[in-house]
């Protein structure tokens, strides 16, 4: 594992672990509602970071990331609801099925022009949405599928630690992946796919792998989150969920490692506390994204970059 010895990995790992240790103390001082908002924020950090792996680093836009999260959640939920399967089998099954669907879809469309993935995933997400709503005898449709909670309690604190741990593991895994040879191939494909291909990279295989990994992570996050919110509805597949992920990544910094982390949490907190303004706050965030894309495309990560460099040059 060359990736684990690279300085970028070590530096990111140190910062992630320090932040995680500090975050361990939050439930001591915060109210249950704040802890709940933070659990949801961790969920979005995982979704945003894994989507960024695909879109920001590889240049492949999936518009079904929310759908893969829902596939994970519904797989685990339905296994438990109809056959009483344990949560601890349901969650890995959900992640595996999401990854397998990503693999199948990727094999079909990723050898073609970039835009096909976005179109096919959009159609896929809407199809899953329609199916989950229509087949209500099996999925309970809009009535909502009630699933077992992970720890048999609705107190958010244990889920907070679970999601904190999961976020740390996912982020470290993504960092290792980005610093690995596969990560270099990913960036080569994003910059110039034809050139990458001419240098002997099997670009289709790299894209299929990254797409499957990113979908499986979404499925995993969705499955665990499903056992926290305990009622699943097709609302999870509303396109505004996908749009939220895009907004988070772009505000944080598209194609940067830290971007989704610093983008997802504040956006989710803001959306929660401004919920009484309903649709208007989504409109404001959309406008912010348009302005950001128009003028800098760097987001919060662009502001943090000089601080990050200074932090490590002083130490070195």
């Amino acid at each position, binding site marked *: 594992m060359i990736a684990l010895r690279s300085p970028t990995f070590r530096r990111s790992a140190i910062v992630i672990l320090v932040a995680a240790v500090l975050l361990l103390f939050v439930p001591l001082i915060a109210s249950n509602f704040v802890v709940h908002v933070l659990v949801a924020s961790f969920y979005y950090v995982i979704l945003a970071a894994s989507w960024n792996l695909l*879109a920001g680093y590889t*240049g492949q*836009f999936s*518009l079904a990331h929310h759908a893969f999260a829902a596939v994970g959640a519904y797989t685990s939920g339905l296994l438990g609801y109809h056959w009483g399967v344990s949560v601890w089998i349901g969650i890995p099954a959900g992640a595996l099925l999401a990854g397998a669907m990503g693999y199948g879809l990727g094999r*079909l*469309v990723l*050898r*073609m*022009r*970039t*835009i*096909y993935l*976005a*179109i*096919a995933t*959009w*159609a*896929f997400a*809407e*199809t899953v949405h*329609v*199916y989950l709503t*229509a*087949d209500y005898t099996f999925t309970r449709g809009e009535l909502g599928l009630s699933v077992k909670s992970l720890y048999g309690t609705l107190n958010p604190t244990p889920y907070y630690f679970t999601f904190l741990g999961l976020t740390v593991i996912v982020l470290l895994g993504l960092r290792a992946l980005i610093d690995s040879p596969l990560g270099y191939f990913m960036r080569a494909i*994003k*910059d*110039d796919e*034809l050139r990458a291909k001419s240098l002997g990279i099997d670009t289709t295989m790299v894209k299929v792998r990254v797409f499957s990994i990113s979908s499986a992570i979404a499925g995993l996050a969705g499955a665990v989150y499903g056992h926290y919110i305990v009622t699943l509805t097709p609302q999870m597949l509303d*396109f*505004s969920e996908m*749009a939220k992920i*895009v*907004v988070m990544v*772009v505000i944080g910094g*598209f*194609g940067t490692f830290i971007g989704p982390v610093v983008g997802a949490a504040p956006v989710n907190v803001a959306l929660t506390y401004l919920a009484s303004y*309903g*649709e*208007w706050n*989504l*409109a404001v*965030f*959309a*406008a912010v*994204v*348009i302005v950001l*894309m*128009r003028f800098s*495309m760097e987001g919060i990560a662009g502001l943090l970059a000089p601080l990050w460099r200074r932090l490590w040059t002083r130490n070195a």
Partner: protein
Amino acid sequence: MFSTELVIQTAISGVMIGVLYALMALGITFIYSIMRMVNWAMGEFYMIGSYLQYMLVAWALGPDLWWLAVLISTAGVFVLGLVVQWGLIKPIFKKPPELRDDYATVVTLALLLFLRSVATGLAGPNQFTPGSNLPMVMIGPMPMAGARVAAFLFALAALGIFWAVLRYTWHGLALRAASQSRVGVQTAGIDVLSVDRIAFGIGVALAGLAGALLAPVFLVYPTNGLITTVKGFEIVVIGGLGSIPGALIAGVLLGLMESFGAAFVDSAYQNIYGFILVIAILVLRPTGLFGERGREA
């Protein structure tokens, strides 16, 4: 259950709705073939077209002048398309080439979210219908809703005009040339950015037209463009990205598949049949029925 009349009626309604879906697909594929980008906010232009139609019919013109309302709504969406292209899409060419795809995708997705949220904020989640006092039309022994027949005929006329403009006018020639080579068109002294503006305007106007025509058939609400847009994208994959005859034929094919699926299998899954067709096409003929193998530049 399998009477001839039912089969014929299903076929007719499939073709009729298929042509309207084809309008949507044509808009997507037309913008793509000239600007090499996908406009993800197509459904929102459809939605705006349907709201304009509703407002004109309900508040200003009355249901008898629905055809005038359709023309005004389409023109309104065309103008909006010009503004959006000028403000948001044109700056794409100030970005480095490797970031253009990212920019186009993210900006049109954000535009989608923006327009949809603003529509919900202004009009609420209510559903409206502009109504229609067109009488039932008898096609042979089968009755058909007047609004659907009118929408079908209107769409056919629009497609005819679209084809004639592309085929016989100077602007049509410029548009076709730009779809073959953006560089070549510039060497011939044509301002490719103004060609882009017209292409984007026409593309979204086709979506607006579909929205205005379908307003009395499907309802008017903030996310009403979603299902039609998904179908538009499915048609584009089936027919082949960038192919105009492909969009038409695939549109009718999808309409037929849907109406037969709804009539003979299960109408609850009506919106899923198209995706099955998409997967089948991707497995058997990945470039679509009429698509050429990807030429990148």
